[in-house]
């Protein structure tokens, strides 16, 4: 167990290192001189050179990377050209909004979809199963763009029940969460169903039936635990990718989080911010995947041996 965690931790760090190199060089490829962007229009040649020295742009790339990465490790993500303040500060301000949205979405999606998937899988071929599959396929085909705009129209404009802009009250959560949770719930229900179908074919399940244990107990006590492994992996991946998921939703619902920030920064050509959002989202993704693997190895001890 311990060795497995250390190995996965090592892999995670390696991947994060590579991501940081990738994002560093990606931003260096961006058009425009950052020194010029920091200065007012029509700055003199000397002022630009002075700024380049101040930003360290005159040094070789590996030195620049080394400076950048030591800064990142100390929590210094650079300066935003559009907001003219610390990138780390801007991200820290907006991250809680995105995290809150994600947490509510994940909980709502799981509470709805896991039981649905398990029931569908243990009643394969029935009407419940058919409608679950239909629900899942529809959800996977639903573009977040279309779903978000449709929700705004139906509940905001047409019925006028819910607010479609900004954050603040519980009611503000309903539409963004519904938009984010539907495609997620669709996938969970689907994975839960197929996991359950596979598990119910295992010999140990037949053995529990042979012992005369009730079907309900078999499903929810013995089979559920094994069907949970792929579900945990999927939920983890979706949670880890939350910043990506929220870009569209935050933009449509004017939710002041990281996703909206990324979209705005791209428009502002604010590369330091884009780079940091890339790095932060990769770090979250890696850490959550690590946690997921550890949880899974606790649920299913066979995983350690692989």
């Amino acid at each position, binding site marked *: 167990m311990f060795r497995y965690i250390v190995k996965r931790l090592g*892999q995670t760090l*390696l*991947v*994060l290192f*590579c*991501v940081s190199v*990738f*994002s560093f060089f*990606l*931003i260096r*490829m*961006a*058009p425009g001189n950052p020194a010029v962007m920091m200065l007012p229009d029509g700055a003199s040649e000397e002022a630009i050179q002075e700024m380049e020295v101040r930003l360290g742009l005159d040094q070789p790339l590996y030195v620049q990377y080394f400076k950048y990465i030591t800064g990142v490790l100390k929590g210094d993500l650079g300066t935003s050209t559009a907001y003219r303040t610390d990138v780390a500060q801007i991200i820290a301000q907006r991250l809680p909004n995105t995290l809150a949205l994600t947490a509510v979405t994940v909980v709502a999606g799981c509470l709805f979809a896991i039981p649905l998937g398990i029931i569908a899988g243990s009643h394969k071929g029935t009407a419940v199963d058919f409608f679950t599959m239909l629900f899942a*396929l*529809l959800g*996977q*085909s*639903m*573009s*977040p*763009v*279309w779903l978000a*705009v*449709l929700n*705004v*129209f139906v509940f905001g*404009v047409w019925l006028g029940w819910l607010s479609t802009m900004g954050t603040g009250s519980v009611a503000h959560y309903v539409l963004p969460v519904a938009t984010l949770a539907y495609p997620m719930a669709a996938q969970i229900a689907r994975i839960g169903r197929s996991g359950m179908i596979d598990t119910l074919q295992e010999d140990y399940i037949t053995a529990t039936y042979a012992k005369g244990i009730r079907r309900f107990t078999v499903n929810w006590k013995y089979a559920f635990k094994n069907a949970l492994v792929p579900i945990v992996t999927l939920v983890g991946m979706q949670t*880890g*990718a939350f*910043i*990506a*998921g929220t*870009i*569209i939703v935050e*933009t*449509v619902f004017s939710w002041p989080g990281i996703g909206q920030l*990324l*979209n705005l*920064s*791209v*428009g502002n*050509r604010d*590369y330091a911010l*884009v*780079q940091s*959002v*890339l790095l932060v*989202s*990769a770090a979250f*993704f*890696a850490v959550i995947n690590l946690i997921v693997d550890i949880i899974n190895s606790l649920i299913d001890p066979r995983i350690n041996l692989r």
Partner: protein
Amino acid sequence: MGKDVLRKRMQSSPFFVVGLSVAFVIVVSVIFLPFFTGYSPTANSLTSTFQKPDWLSHGLSGHILGTDELGRDIFTRLLYGGRYSLFIAAVVVLLQVFLGTSPGILAGYFGGILDTIVMRLCDIVLAIPNLILAIAIMAVVGVNMTNLIFVLTFAGWVDCCKVTRNNVLVIKNREFVHASVVLGASHGHIMFTQILPNVTTHIIILASQRFGFTILLEAALSFLNLGIQPPVPSWGNMIAGGRSFMTIYPWLVFAPGIALMLCVLAFNFLGDGLRDVLDPKRN
């Protein structure tokens, strides 16, 4: 697997039949219908803005789905937008299959250090969520059609690579491969004429599933103004453009939204159906 078995399976899979029919209708419409509607997808006509849909009362020459804020025919724009979406998705998926399968076969077949390098490379690409990766690259390299195809391909070749590699790992230990080695076949011959045909089923299934996903990703990028640029129509940027007029003329958003949903649904049904039809494990 014989042709009779395939035909029988196709007929018994409702998802496959429905998906294939709808996808066929969509593909044929976006390719051929623009020749008959008689409107330009980009030319403005400020005397005829926000016209109500004529439906089919004037045949193909009327504004079947009405006009938008600049007087452009929505139905025509929908068809051209579909052309771009489907064309891009097709090119992207083909590139992904090619770029993913080749390293996948090599990594799975030779194993060792090559395998480690390829797999770690996949991990790095997988470590950044698709949409964020696409947005970041698009922001840096600039927005145009070639870059869009490059970005979408780059975000998705990994799945193909991993699936191929995992399948090759299993197949390379089968007896017929050992037999080829004993008979003195070259590595290239074994990889591409012995192993490759055995992984194609999985690749076809994966490719059909990636198709719908690529359309969704392209729509998201176009919605964020990082994909296909107005005035060239795409379903994503039509939804974005129509948002401002949603309260007075919701049809502007509904037409591309419904088209997007139907199209992706059809291809996802097709992908799921294909898995049922082609699954080698099924009897």
